[in-house]
């Protein structure tokens, strides 16, 4: 079998200037709107449910089902918030959509808002996306000017205001409730759940929060039908996904692929294989917070939610990082913990205090001052911190860290052993006359 990328989401990615409305429209942007307004909102939701589209933010919750959690007739406005706070290390798929085809996203937003009865949508874009923000902003302005946004969307009796809200550089604001706090002008800290945002969300109103890629998948589903979407992917993981492949491969990049393909096949045939002819050590399957797969495990896993779960990891964000045989896993863990420690919002005790402790313990190992007990302590701290907090940021750190400690323990042990060896000559020196 030959594996090659497909063009469902990425159909206009390689069209020059597709971020401009005129070019995008020529290439079919906003073509679904006439169909959309002929349907009832419930029909749209039903079609999305039938497509089996799962949330592309990482958790993979079915999008249509999420929408149906909105309480009816609350008398309050319903909000859509599009999560473009793409901050998970190794993840850069939403950036491609925003830069190369922002009108696909806006079209998706219109579809979603019509389905859920939302007239006020927000895009929360990470602060570091500066040039990307400019492209998105001008796309939104063009869409307003052309009447795709505003009082009467594409001439239909449906109003939609779209606001772009820029983050200020906090990973945690990609957590959906911290994101809501941030839009509300507060410090970006996750809220306790329940209540869930579908019931009490932005400004206390029912709110749907979807990832950029989820929303961008809607135009295809509406244009071609749920069955066409299901033609890609697997039974439980239908459709396509943007995979950002980085690390030690010959051809790193963004590839749209149907779900369910074998990971190694994708690395070899799509990304050109491990670089410089080196051996494969491990693969981070879907962003930094997903537990690492050894080369052996990578050989049997396929790129879908179920296979990843069966391999005790997660599908995540599609950000695949290939690690070759030269990688020092202790350094990887140091890097990981440093990131999550830095990004902990500081709200919950275990995450606030514990991640810093873990970082220092790994540094201690790297400095050759650690002991076997420190490795055990690191493992225990993973357990002590995980799932004891308001949000899953701490778990996003401890789950992968545990996987490295368990699967590559010998590398951590080596830090201790090498130290003992290094200490030996020093003692001899002391004994010398």
């Amino acid at each position: 079998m030959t594996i090659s990328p497909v063009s469902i989401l990425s159909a206009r990615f390689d069209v020059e200037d597709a971020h401009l409305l005129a070019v995008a429209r020529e290439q079919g942007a906003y073509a679904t709107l006439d169909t959309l307004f002929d349907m009832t909102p419930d029909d749209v939701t039903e079609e999305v449910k039938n497509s089996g589209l799962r949330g592309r933010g990482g958790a993979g919750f079915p999008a249509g089902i999420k929408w149906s959690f909105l309480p009816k007739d609350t008398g309050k406005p319903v909000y859509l918030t599009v999560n473009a706070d793409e901050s998970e290390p190794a993840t850069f798929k939403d950036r491609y959509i925003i830069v190369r085809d922002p009108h696909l996203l806006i079209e998706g937003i219109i579809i979603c808002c019509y389905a859920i009865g939302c007239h006020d949508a927000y895009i929360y874009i990470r602060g570091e996306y500066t040039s990307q923000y400019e492209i998105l902003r001008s796309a939104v302005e063009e869409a307003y000017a052309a009447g795709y946004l505003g009082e009467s969307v594409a001439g239909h009796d449906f109003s939609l205001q779209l606001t772009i809200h820029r983050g200020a550089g906090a990973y945690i604001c990609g957590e959906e409730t911290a994101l809501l706090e941030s839009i509300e002008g507060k410090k970006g800290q996750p809220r306790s759940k329940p209540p869930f945002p579908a019931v009490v969300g932005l400004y206390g109103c029912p709110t749907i929060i979807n990832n950029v890629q989820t929303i961008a998948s809607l135009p295809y589903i509406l244009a071609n039908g749920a069955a066409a979407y299901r033609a890609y992917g697997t039974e439980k993981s239908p459709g396509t996904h943007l995979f950002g492949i980085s690390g030690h491969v010959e051809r790193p990049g963004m590839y749209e692929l149907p779900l369910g393909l074998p990971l190694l096949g994708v690395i070899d045939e799509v990304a050109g294989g491990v670089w410089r002819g080196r051996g494969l050590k491990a693969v981070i399957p879907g962003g930094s917070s997903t537990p690492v797969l050894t080369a052996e495990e990578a050989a049997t896993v396929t790129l879908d939610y179920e296979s990843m779960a069966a391999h005790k990891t997660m599908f995540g964000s599609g950000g695949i990082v290939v690690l070759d045989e030269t990688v020092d896993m202790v350094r990887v863990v140091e890097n990981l913990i440093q990131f999550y420690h830095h990004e902990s919002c500081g709200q919950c005790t275990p995450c606030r205090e514990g991640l810093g402790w873990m970082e220092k313990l790994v540094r201690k190992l790297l400095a050759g001052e650690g002991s076997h007990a420190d490795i055990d302590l690191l493992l225990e701290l993973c357990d002590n911190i995980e799932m004891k907090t308001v949000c899953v940021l701490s778990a996003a750190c401890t789950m992968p860290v545990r996987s490295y400690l368990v699967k590559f323990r010998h590398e951590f042990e080596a830090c201790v052993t090498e130290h003992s060896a290094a200490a030996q000559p020093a003692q001899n020196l002391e004994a010398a006359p």
Partner: protein
Amino acid sequence: MSEKVTLSVNGHEVRVAAGANLIDALEAVGIDIPHFCYHPALGADGNCRMCLVEIEDGRPPIVPACKTPAAEGMKVVLESEKIKKIQRDILEMELINHPVDCPVCDQAGECTLQDYYMKFDLGDSRMDVAQVKKDKRLDFGGGVVHDQERCVLCGRCVRFTRQITKTGELGIVNRADQARVAIFPGKPLNNRYALNVVELCPVGAMTSRDFRFKQRVWFLKKTPGVCHGCATGCSITIDHHREKYKDARIYRYRARHNPLINGYFICDDGRLSYHLENENRLETPLVKGVPVTPTEALDAVRTHLGQAKYPLVVVSPDCSLEQLYAAQMFCLEHGAKVSGYSAAAIVAGDGDDYLIKDDKAANRPSLNLLGIDTSREYLREALGHADLVITLNNDPFTDGADADLSEMMKGITTIACATHHCEFFDNADIVLPIASYSEYAGSVINSDGVLQRFGRAVVKNRPVPELLELLHALGGPVADMGAAWAGMRTAVAPLGAVDPDKIGEHGMRLEGL
């Protein structure tokens, strides 16, 4: 009454209020769930994670009790190994970057972190890497000194300034283990309730400049009292102590929870008003400025009382209900007039819409209840032909507007039964020191008609008499508190049904005032 639900705690069934969060619901039946950040007046924040409990068959199975409403049939587990381990783990996390400077920390002895460590943890430190260093001795203004290293980031203080005073001076800045409570540069705490953050702080991070390093809390005796700082009459705890070879003194007031009056808080003026109980006190009787024994002083008063044709007694709206009644009966006995005029205690415009009142007297409603005239006209007329004035701790003439009254006083023999030095009392013909409110038991009625009883907190090495005793010694008919209440219950309708021994720690709202 609110609806009740039945739930099981560690396998035992309990009936608790429906909908209340598990911390409050179980506290009401005597079961404590440890917590740092939750406070009933500030709501649940859920950040400390100390109150995590297990819910059997629950989804999720581990929840913060502060955020979980009690529900029918819920099976709460507090004693499982899993929960005990979580409590130890959370405490370990709280402590790794904590300075553990308990020996020099004012909070030691009443510190939630210290108490929980003793109760739930007792583990050795496993932290052998560098601690996070933060700032200490930060002057937050309002008499509050902050130590960021001791702080557990529960955010109670922040929520207090946002939700209660709505002044918002405090915030938590930075993330992760660099997070710290801070003020905005150049914007210190600037509200009249700031010191409540010291009391709200579960650890020694917020200290009061007034109290810090003054006394170890385990030496302090804690007596329920009523603040006499204004007409609100907030419930307080009087923390006092007699150091060896020294006299008893008060070290601080703390808010005492009272849902009828002040909730969980008191104002800073009231909190610091304990200084007045310690300082500038009258201790020795004086006749014409010369120190005399109490017996000599009493004899001198008796002589004046015996000779006076038109005695006038001026009572203070700070006197207790029992004292006022005893004074009223004393006046009947001696044919004296009694006035309760006291303009000096009213500071117009000083009050707010929370706890602070314009009227700085603790018991003015009792004057009206007993029918003691408080008008200026009545006092002025009485002064017009009085030949003896006995003032019961009332210094009514300090206000410039009452200069005419001061003028009228000249030439009239004055006897001052007083707690504190002041120009008027010190210049009286006879000065009789009396006990102040922290030194006697009694009752007061606040501006809202709530009657509170308080006990005697401080016993001085050389106690001065309580006013009620003094009046009895001078021939007043009311022998003691019991006699006062027996008399009042007969004569004063709204008190008829009041059993003084059953007033309770929160007091009671009087009907028919």
